């Protein structure tokens, strides 16, 4: 919930819809500060598919459209808010159509998890956002439960066949087929080493805390 990387300019919010207001304010601040320009910085809000059901989503787009703010919204649509399907929460007209009055550009990666498609859409949306609000909608899928790593196929709110079909089209697996077996092995070894490094750092930090904290 509270992942953060200040150097990369990333922060997180634990309440749905909050991040788009803050991002809109950041984009407004960039403009007031004279920093908005082509190839300049943009504020990016990463949202789920339920964020457009909040008032501040549309309030933020209204502000961004009024002032042509450098704001990019990325909506990862996995079809469910916790366990509630999209059809029970939003009208039939797709979001990209409902957004058209508020953003100057909508890019859609609609092939459920195509990495190259998402990358192309992101580049296009990022460039568009430099001169006014833009949106990138990514239609994707969630394998496990809303919270944690639990397999929720037996809960009854979505068909197991839907989960199985999505798993067969896993984007990482699909991407892996585009490189050689040797290259895949090298990449996996690098990723494993990076993960292990983080574990080592965290364990060393925990040992240090035990030494310096007299209460533990």
């Amino acid at each position: 919930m509270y992942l953060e990387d200040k150097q990369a300019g990333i922060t997180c919010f634990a309440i749905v819809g909050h991040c788009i207001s803050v991002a809109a304010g950041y984009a407004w601040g960039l403009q007031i500060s004279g920093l908005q320009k082509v190839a300049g910085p943009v504020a990016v809000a990463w949202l789920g598919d339920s964020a457009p059901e909040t008032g501040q989503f549309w309030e933020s787009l209204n502000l961004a459209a009024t002032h042509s703010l450098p704001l990019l919204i990325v909506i990862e649509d996995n079809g469910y808010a916790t366990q509630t399907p999209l059809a029970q929460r939003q009208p039939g007209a797709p979001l990209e159509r409902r957004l058209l009055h508020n953003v100057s550009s909508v890019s859609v990666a609609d092939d459920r998890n195509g990495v190259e498609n998402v990358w192309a859409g992101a580049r296009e949306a990022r460039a568009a956002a430099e001169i006014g609000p833009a949106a990138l909608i990514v239609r994707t899928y969630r394998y496990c439960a809303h919270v944690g790593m639990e397999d929720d196929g037996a809960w009854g709110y979505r068909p197991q066949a839907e989960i199985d079909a999505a798993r067969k089209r896993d984007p990482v697996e699909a991407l892996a087929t585009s490189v050689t077996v040797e290259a895949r092995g090298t990449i996996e070894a690098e990723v494993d080493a990076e993960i292990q490094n983080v574990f080592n750092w965290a364990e060393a930090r925990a040992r240090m805390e035990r030494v310096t904290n007299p209460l533990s």
Partner: protein
Amino acid sequence: MIAGDPRLLLLGAGVADPKGIFGTTLGAREAAPGRVLETPLSENMLTGALAGLALVGWRPVLVHARSEFALLGMSHIVDTLAKWKWLHCEPMPVTLRLLVGRGWGQGPTHSQSFHAWFASVTGLRTLYPSTPDAYDEALAIITKADAPTILIESRRLHEADMTRLAFDAMGSPDVALAPVGDSLLDALDAAAMLAAHGVRASVWPIWDLQNPWCAFEVGAESVTAPYLAAGIPVVITESVPAMLCLTAQCGFPPGRNVSVMCANPAPLGSAPQIEARWYPTAIQIASAAWAMVSRQAPPEFRHRATEVFHGPF
């Protein structure tokens, strides 16, 4: 003020219009027109946007012409702004300036002050100055603060005669009156009535809600409230029915001689006849103070209420 701090931004519905929030933002607009920003009527979004503006380096002040409008952004106030410094280890120097209405038919939804509510939120500083000295101090606080400030202001005080504050401070009064917000005016009237009957009442407006007993005595330079240690009886007065939160927070020891005068605990009606019965009056305050210092029946206090706010809104 805005000319002296290049990071200050003033924003909100009406801050840049010709009326300028009852004239209070006209000077800022003249001094720094690029930093007084008119906004859409999107209170929730604007409250969150304060965080974004602060992250770029601005020190934004969001103005709501009535405090009720801030409630639309309560989730951001409590969970985004108030918690930022602790969750993200960086400052969140933003201010919400909220005006409280009274008189001229403000009615139930344009007359409330939520200072006790805000004061109970961890991470917020809540200020409700009612004298020019306290307001100066509050402005100094918000220009230096690294956490969010709620600055509450009574519309009724805008047109009040502040020269009334220049009476002599008392070293050791019989009773202390501690008004919150615009009930300062009623407390001053009550003090004058008590003086006419030989009771010395000093007036100590409460203005820093997290530190309510650190006050400017009206007419004095001091910033302490010695009545607390001296055992002088205290009458706390305010114009909203929210006093219980504040008294609980003050941590008065049991048995201390404290009386609380607050508004009727029901939604306010718009008609002036209803308003007159809703707010605590100067006579009620004087009578409560009298009862704390004398076993004799209270005298017949005479007071002709003067409504200082004539509208519009």
